[in-house]
């Protein structure tokens, strides 16, 4: 399978003292979903900003769909990579349709304005993501999930083979989170390559083909998601005890799910009485014992 994202020994620093990426290598093939995991400050967003051309790496190569990005003009790059930022809003009252139409920009010249066809494509994409009825609403007044879907629609009308999402589910409720992941996985099965940063190891375990773990600007591990994500690596990555448990839905293969291996300590179930709360606990504890 053709490699759509091929990053080799990429390094980036804001100055001699602040290295954000150290020789990062990463590959995502056609029709693959790759999850990028790592604690805050690991360099995930920096990597993505290099990928979409907002930052210029000091060394290393970055190839997208076979093209070295250093040779590409911004507009050419934008035809290859579509980007969904983390959580955006606008100052001015743009409508959701205005925002979605902007995805057609890489296919226009500098003096062009979106055609009726562009507007129809954007409206069609909003319809397909189930938010067509919001097209005339002000983007800034939509909910986080609706904004994220609008940005996804914008990225999709861009018609790029590579889609990069920066924590697409960070601001969403559980239902919208699953919804976005479902949409993304359908895009992947259509042959797009998706690189997605996330703070949820379960996203990688349940949805991704590949996983890349980053820490302090370096890749700690990368490969098949199920191989890469181990309890030991996650504990090391996030500095908390983490366990993987096997769970199965009705009629399907058991899957691994990641859980923190610490629990809330329930005071009323402790053996030793807690003296520093100052609350009358005796009666409660007696009831529990009975």
């Amino acid at each position, binding site marked *: 399978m053709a490699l759509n994202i091929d990053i080799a020994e990429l390094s980036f620093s804001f100055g001699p003292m602040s290295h954000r990426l150290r020789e990062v290598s990463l590959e995502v093939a056609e029709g693959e979903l790759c999850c990028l995991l790592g604690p805050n400050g690991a360099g995930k967003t920096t990597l993505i900003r290099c990928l*979409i*051309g*907002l930052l210029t790496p000091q060394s290393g190569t970055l190839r997208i769909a076979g093209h070295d990005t250093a040779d590409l*003009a*911004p*507009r*050419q*790059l*934008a035809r290859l*990579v*579509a*980007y969904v*930022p983390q959580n*955006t809003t*606008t*100052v*001015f*009252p*743009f409508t959701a349709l*205005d*925002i979605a139409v*902007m*995805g057609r*920009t*890489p296919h226009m010249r*500098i*003096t*062009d*304005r*979106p055609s*009726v066809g562009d*507007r*129809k494509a954007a*409206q*069609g994409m909003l*319809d*397909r*993501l*189930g*938010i*067509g009825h919001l*097209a005339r609403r*002000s983007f*800034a007044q939509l909910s986080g999930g609706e904004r994220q*879907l609008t940005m996804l629609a914008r990225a*999709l009308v*861009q*018609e790029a083979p590579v889609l990069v999402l920066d924590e697409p589910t960070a601001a969403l409720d559980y*239902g*919208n989170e*699953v*919804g976005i992941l*479902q*949409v993304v996985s*359908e*895009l992947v099965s*259509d*042959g797009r390559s998706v690189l997605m940063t996330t703070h949820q190891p379960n996203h990688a375990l349940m949805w991704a083909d590949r996983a890349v773990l980053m820490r302090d600007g370096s890749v700690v591990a990368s490969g098949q998601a199920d191989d890469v994500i181990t309890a030991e690596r996650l504990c090391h990555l996030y500095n908390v005890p983490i366990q993987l448990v096997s769970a199965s*839905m*009705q009629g399907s293969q058991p899957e691994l799910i990641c859980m923190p291996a610490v629990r809330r300590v329930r005071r009323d179930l402790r053996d030793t009485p807690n003296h520093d709360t100052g609350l009358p606990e005796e009666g409660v504890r007696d009831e529990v014992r009975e």
Partner: protein
Amino acid sequence: MTENDEVPAETTQEPFSKKTLTVEPSSSKVVRDYKLIGRPISSIQSQEPSTTEVVRESTEIEGGRESHARIRRVSYWGLAVVALIILIVLSLGWGRYSLSPLGLVRAAVAVFVPTPASWHLSAAQETVLMQVRIPRIFAAVVVGAALSGSGSAYQSMFRNPLVAPDILGVSAGAGFGASLAILLNFPFSVIQLMAFVGGLIGVTLSIGIAQFVGRGSTVVLVLAGLVVSALAQALISMTQYFSDPETTLPRITFWLLGGLDSVTASSLWLPTILVAVCVVILYAISWPITVLAAGEDEARSLGIDRRLVWGLVLTATTLMTATVVSVAGIIGWVGLVVPHLARSIVGPSFHRLLLASLLIGAGFLLAVDDLGRSASSIELPLGVLTAVIGAPFFVALLAKARHQWL
């Protein structure tokens, strides 16, 4: 199960979602969210027949709505242009030496077709019209349009609705240039030229500082503009301090207040052409400006050459503003208030915002100038009047549109 009729088939096939839906059948949120995620997202390249049909149907509806909206929009633009023309005709007649609008229309007809002699203007009327009214009204239209147009471009590019076209020091720079020229007793055309050059130097300094210190950061650019403006203000005060209180000091003061009373027909050609060229440039790149107004990183990820667009916008707006400041002195508030008003009517898409700002700005400054030259026995300075009218107007807009951008 009747509750689930509106849920797409593919979600009800799964026992998991069926259970969830029957638990809370009355909750519309649950149903809507499942609709949201349950619809199949087939690829752009290969669509299932059923999906294509749905899309085509909805875009046809959309297309109909679109063309209807377009007709309505065009008629609104027509109305605005007609309103501006009526205002111009009324302004031509308005003033201490008043001319009736009907007489003006007759005279205009008389230029093209043979008419009774009574339709022609008298020599005195013609002098007033050609030497005083037309240049002045033309100047008001050009100055108002240019200030509002560059204000709308600045607000979009800085993604800040509180930005005025003089934020990068163009007005203060021009003010210093003009004050210096007046102090040195240069003729009127040199005063205009030095105001223009002063404005350009002010903005160039601001951009230079921002490039040198902040590597082109927008915040540093605004701060550099503040610094340059403050410096130019100090230098203006210096020229005032050294000027003769009997002769040059009043001239400097009046110039800084802004006004159109010294405008002549011959001095208007060059400014008008410059402003027109700049407006065409801004209109040509209206889509990149719109995308940048929605978000800078997003615009760059959509392949917009940020430096090119910024370069073009700064050049066009600076030339425009410096030109009109050299014609009319420092006139505040127009470039801040009018783009606001325009945006609340036509929305933030820049091609519409620019045109609406030009039209409203022209009409606004013309009306204010009419007021200034007829409200009292002495003419009120234009820059003072725009502030007096603009400030409360701005507060009203702020109260009305607060939820949109604050």
